């Protein structure tokens, strides 16, 4: 399988017409996505925090000096 058929196969798996791959607007879409991926900082050790247990309700988050006035 060469590179070009692989991309076409990918589009086929996604149910996307192959000509979409030539669309300028789709190119712009992926340029924006690439920017976002750069901002995500994939590989940044800071993201290792994602692998530690954490309750999204912030239960551990009481301010050190207690909450300010309710």
């Amino acid at each position, binding site marked *: 399988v060469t590179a070009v058929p692989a991309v076409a196969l*990918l*589009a086929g798996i*996604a*149910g*996307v*017409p192959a000509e*979409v791959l030539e*669309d300028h*607007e*789709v190119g712009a*879409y*992926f340029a*924006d*996505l690439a*920017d*976002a*991926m*750069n*901002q*995500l*900082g*994939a590989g940044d050790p*800071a*993201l*290792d*925090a*994602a*692998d*530690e247990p*954490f309750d*999204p*309700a*912030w239960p*551990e*988050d*009481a*301010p*050190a*000096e207690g*909450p*300010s*006035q*309710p």
Partner: protein
Amino acid sequence: VSVPTDLGHGTILATAAALRSRQVRAIDLVQAALDRIERMDPVLRSWVVVDGERALAAARDADRDLATGSDRGPLQGIPVAVKDIIDAAGLPTRCGSSVLRDAGPAARDAPVVARLRAAGAIVLGKTVTQEFAAGVLSPPARNPWDPARTPGGSSGGSAVAVATGTVRLALGTDTGGSIRIPAAAVGVCGYKPTFGSLPLAGIAPLAPSLDTAGPLAASVADLWVGWRALAGLPPAPAPARDDLRGVRIGAPRGFFRGRLQPGVADAFAGAAALFAEIGADLVEADWADAARARAAAYVINRAETAETVWRAVGGDAPRLDAVNADLRTRVLAGRLVPAVAVTEARRARRAIRRSIADHYRAHRLDAVLVPTLPAVAVPADDPVVRFPDGAAENAGVAFTRLTMPFNATGQPVLALPCGFADGLPVGLQLAGRPGDDERLFAVAAAWEAAAGWHHCHPPLPHESAP
């Protein structure tokens, strides 16, 4: 409590008191709203369907119930609007899409609508949304402050219905800012509650791991009444405080203040100064992960939106030709987003939620204060944000830049009007801790009372500008 002399702009509590003293009837409120729609909608085009007959019948029932002492609380007899991606029994949910133009009436209310009706609210009809809630313009709706401009989106019709005093309360949804963006663009209040705190059944999904339903209203007090009902909580007095002494509010610069139109920057600076004047401690601490949070929400949004809209068209690529060109591209391209991008974005989101919690704890913050939009509402025929340095940014990108980070964190965020630039509304966001709604509302109410921007209403189309 004063009797509302203008049926459109009396607060919910004042109107509720007038209903109970029989100085006004629910049927008068509904009729006034219908009259207002008839007068304005040819210009503002914010309603998809108006359910006048059933609303009038519900109003008669409310008047009868109140007269016999059957009291369900402050929303009883109050007309409300519902964004057209949310099911209301007996009305079609078309999601602003020609793909669903033949949709039949919904068999039942979405739970959030059912809760409003259980509290006595009267559903007046469905309001315009951007197609499948995927965008920030809400065509064909227009901005009441300048009908050549958009009202923002995607809950644009609901925001216009509130801004014009047609209803005091409207339902919206927020995946990347879709409650807060139109609230800012038309000068009303909006609330994105803590992610997961309100049921989403009966609401067309956009990006399920980010979607949030919530209210839009003309004041913090009205928003409180609406939020309590939506959350299935009994009515309770709005939290109040005389000043903000002892309240610590983060005021980050960097990402959130880096690129604003000058008039927006000035209005926001004035709003921030007022927080300090009434006693708040403003803490100028940047949150280092704001751009990362926006990026995570963006990537997740793109992937999930592609999947939900694809399913809405039945997984049929040719049928997708019926949706607008931008959304079609977004769906087709979104189906090709690599899995690694989505898994990395979800991983980043988990780290970001820890990061924002650490930020609040490190600086002992009660809330964070940032602008809602970097610009005022854009022209409908040229939806581009322009900055003095000549830079131009697509409204879809610019308008979600400062709202999306909080969809990644899942925090509750209040959006409030905070002034004007070039005659158009400017808004701020006040982001709280998850589940800490009461504190957030109390802080917002104190500031709103001092600022008074919620008293500003747009001229109706038949009126001249002030």
